[in-house]
């Protein structure tokens, strides 16, 4: 039974306008996509935080709030592992290493904290950032869900 569960696959892709009211839409959509795995509340909340950071960055940094771009969100479930890709075709990141430093932000004027990447790293198992100036940015994150399933499957 367990093996079969782990091999289950599911995939979805969303694209939406880069406007701030879609931040909560993106979080809800990803959470709804994984609910049938019965993840813990903590896991769901961690995923919601990471998605929120990546989508917000695409909107405010990638497209600089110009309200004219699309954000692309791709989710893949392989068994109990969730892969998330958040992509924008915005201005890109010049120095990725520096951008990922906790507390580094180019927009303190927008009350940004510079903790976005730090939270994505802390709340997901894995984080990769790919970016090209003038072309856009892709964030790839992975998280194993429903770790408690191993215990539940005993019955």
């Amino acid at each position, binding site marked *: 039974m367990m093996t079969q569960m782990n091999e289950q696959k599911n995939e979805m892709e969303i694209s939406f306008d880069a406007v*701030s*009211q879609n*931040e*909560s839409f993106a*979080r809800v959509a990803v959470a709804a996509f994984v609910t049938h795995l019965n993840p813990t509340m*903590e896991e769901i*909340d961690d995923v*919601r*935080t990471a998605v*929120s*950071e990546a989508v*917000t960055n695409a*909107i*405010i940094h990638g497209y600089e709030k110009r309200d004219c771009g699309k954000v692309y969100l791709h989710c893949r479930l392989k068994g109990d592992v969730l892969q998330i890709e958040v992509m924008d075709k915005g201005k890109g990141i010049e120095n990725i290493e520096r951008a990922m430093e*906790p*507390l580094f932000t180019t927009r*303190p004027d*927008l*009350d*940004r*904290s*510079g*903790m*976005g990447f*730090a*939270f994505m790293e*802390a709340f997901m198992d894995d984080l990769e950032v790919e970016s090209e100036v003038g072309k856009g940015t892709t964030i790839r994150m992975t998280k194993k869900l429903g770790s408690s399933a191993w215990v539940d499957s005993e019955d």
Partner: protein
Amino acid sequence: MEEFQVINNYLMIKLPEEVDHHQATTICKKADHYILQQNVSNVVFDFEDTKFMDSSGIGIIMGRYRKISCFGGKVYAIHMDKKMERMFDMAGLNKIVEVLE
């Protein structure tokens, strides 16, 4: 919805259910209005109703801290859950914000 209340020179901000960038924009604007117009020197962030927060919440607090600390004001936070405390610690906010139980 967020709620604002001024008691003496304390501004109490009851944060909304979801504290993200979309909500933060309004909260920062309203908070700064109170800070500048009504001479409050301290700000209390109340997370009682908050079920979701991302780094935008950290940004709200940092920004308000910068505005009031130079005049000797203090920032307080109440009703935080474990995850919020972890986010606070990661951002070093525990050094500048007094966390009340």
